[in-house]
């Protein structure tokens, strides 16, 4: 191990001299501090939102065929008893938004189904109607003098919940599936292809082939060709993953008794699907351009790798505020994360799937993503054009923009 100390001294000293080492060293704690701040703010805002919801008195009415439910308990919970005969009228009131919730207890509480109707608030809050129905029944059973009633109601009861939004039945989970696919797709494509995007330009620098290449093909053609190729490759990768799964499902569905997929029951909201696609496409273009630009600015794939973590934190960091997107979609932090181009993809895609993305936010967000993607691609071309011969060092921002 002769010279081990010399080698170590050399390696350590040259690494310590690199700006990237210090950027990474200080950059990550700063990013973690930002994320911790997001988590803290998100949790606090979620907690506040939950408390607000708890404080919010929502209007609900109850009809009871069983005779077990105690009107006093309903009243104590700020509800109101209504005649069974008014059932359709109350359902219509929920449907048109005049009433927040309606609970219809059947004649036989142990074998029958409790029908719950509610007005959509958000995916988590919508559970309050079922919660109220079960609490009223549970308290009424405890209050009952009949041992039979108590015994019967300790068994699990069937509850059927129907949520309405803008006059039509709304299933928040099913509603999320199709727009949510774009979120899943974005996540997997960046995870699978991010590194390839990053190294697609460093390869030519490291192989010293770039000078000959750039006197044969325009830099713009080369970069745009690379970006489009990566997008096509991603689509191929997606097809390669999805097709065998679908084929396997179709061929083995009966043999393995796999559950049937009833796609016809999936709600198709073309608006949400369109927004999901537009956000996905523009986000993918933006991050492909960004990763290609970083690759063009640094001399080696090894150095590019250091920046990959930072980009991933930008993209997926907003997931730490996911609960906030559900509970407080109007908060300033959510708006900032949704409209700042480098953090926008996940908030926009997630909120679009959750159904709380306002149309103006979607349009502004998509416009910001498209403009930023175009700018980043132009910068990538510029970096590539002027950074090609920087085989051993990174280009500074000043150099990139000062060249004629």
């Amino acid at each position, binding site marked *: 191990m002769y010279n081990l100390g010399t080698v170590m001294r050399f390696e350590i000293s040259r690494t310590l001299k690199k700006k990237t080492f210090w950027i990474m060293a200080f950059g990550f704690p700063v990013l973690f501090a930002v994320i911790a701040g997001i988590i803290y703010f998100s949790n606090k805002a979620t907690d506040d939102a939950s408390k607000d919801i708890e404080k919010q008195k929502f209007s609900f009415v109850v009809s009871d065929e069983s005779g077990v439910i105690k009107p006093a308990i309903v009243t104590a919970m700020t509800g109101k008893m209504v005649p069974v005969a008014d059932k359709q009228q109350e359902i219509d009131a929920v449907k048109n938004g005049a009433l927040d919730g309606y609970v219809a207890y059947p004649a036989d509480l142990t074998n029958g189904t409790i029908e719950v109707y509610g007005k959509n608030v958000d995916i988590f809050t919508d559970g309050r109607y079922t919660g109220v129905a079960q609490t009223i029944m549970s308290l009424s059973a405890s209050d009952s003098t009949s041992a039979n009633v108590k015994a019967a109601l300790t068994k699990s009861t069937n509850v059927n919940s129907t949520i309405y939004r803008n006059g039509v039945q709304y299933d928040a989970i099913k509603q999320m599936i199709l727009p949510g696919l774009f979120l899943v797709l974005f996540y997997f494509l960046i995870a699978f292809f991010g590194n390839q995007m990053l190294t697609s330009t460093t390869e030519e620098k490291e*192989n010293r082939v770039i000078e000959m290449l750039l006197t044969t093909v325009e830099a713009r053609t080369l970069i745009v060709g690379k970006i489009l190729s990566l997008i096509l490759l991603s689509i191929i990768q997606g097809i390669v993953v999805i097709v065998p799964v679908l084929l396997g499902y179709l061929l083995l569905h009966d043999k393995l008794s796999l559950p049937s997929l009833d796609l016809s029951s999936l709600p198709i909201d073309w608006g949400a699907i369109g927004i999901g696609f537009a956000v996905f496409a523009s986000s993918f273009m933006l991050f492909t351009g960004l990763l290609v630009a970083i690759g063009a600015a640094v001399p080696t794939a090894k150095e590019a790798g250091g920046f990959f973590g930072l980009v991933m934190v930008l993209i997926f960091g907003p997931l730490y505020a996911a609960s906030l997107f559900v509970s407080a979609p109007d908060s300033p932090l959510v708006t900032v994360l949704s409209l700042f181009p480098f953090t926008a993809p996940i908030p926009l895609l997630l909120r679009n799937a959750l159904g709380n993305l306002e149309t103006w936010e979607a349009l502004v967000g998509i416009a910001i993503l498209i403009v930023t993607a175009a700018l980043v691609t132009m910068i990538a071309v510029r970096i590539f054009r002027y950074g090609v011969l920087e085989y051993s060092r990174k280009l500074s921002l000043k150099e990139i923009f000062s060249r004629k």
Partner: protein
Amino acid sequence: MTQIISIKDFSIGFGDVQVIKNLSFHVNKGETFGLLGSNGSGKTTTIRTLLGIYQPSAGKLLIGGKPYSVSSGIRLGYLPEERGLYKKESVIDTMLYFGQLKGLRRDQAHNEALDYLKKVGLADKAKARLDTLSGGQQQKVQLGITIMAEPELLILDEPTKGFDPVNRRLLMSIIEEHQKKGATVILVTHQMEEVERLCDRVILLKDGKAAAYGTVKEVRKAHGGKSLDDIFVSIYGGENEEVQNV
């Protein structure tokens, strides 16, 4: 004589270092021109600026009467000083890619690549990955790419750098072949033996300026009939600091 390259009042610097200062020269169509100088004299910088890779801080650098761009219609063959290829691709795929980028149809590029590989004894390596080839074989492939699509302007920056005698002889024969076909050749080098053998005119750069410029005969005459090798030593060895424009 028609000028294919015209460089006028060209200056360029990087940071505080002025690499080229007010340089002017031209290259005639069909001639073989030697761009000479010691390491760091600005030869490669001049070529890179001529090809639009660097931007000049002053002056005009024209090929065929206009600044060079890929779309300017000049059939260019450029062998840069910094060399390399897509190491994980096959020889034939790499040659096809560059051939097509230079405007050849796929079948034309394929035929031209195979003809060249046969000529240089690499036909059996056509499907081999480039990183499985020796350094000399890779150089042959790079040279083959440079001369694809019959370039009318061939710029060879330090073409013999790292070449063994066999490849050097091959390179010389290729240059001569293209000279006969009427191509303009720019040889960027400090190998004076090759310059005397191949070049019609030369320019010697020193400290970013022309230290000598003219036909080989004129330059030699101006230096008392010395060989180019001796002239090179006298200029770059500090014996003659004066700029001589012949």
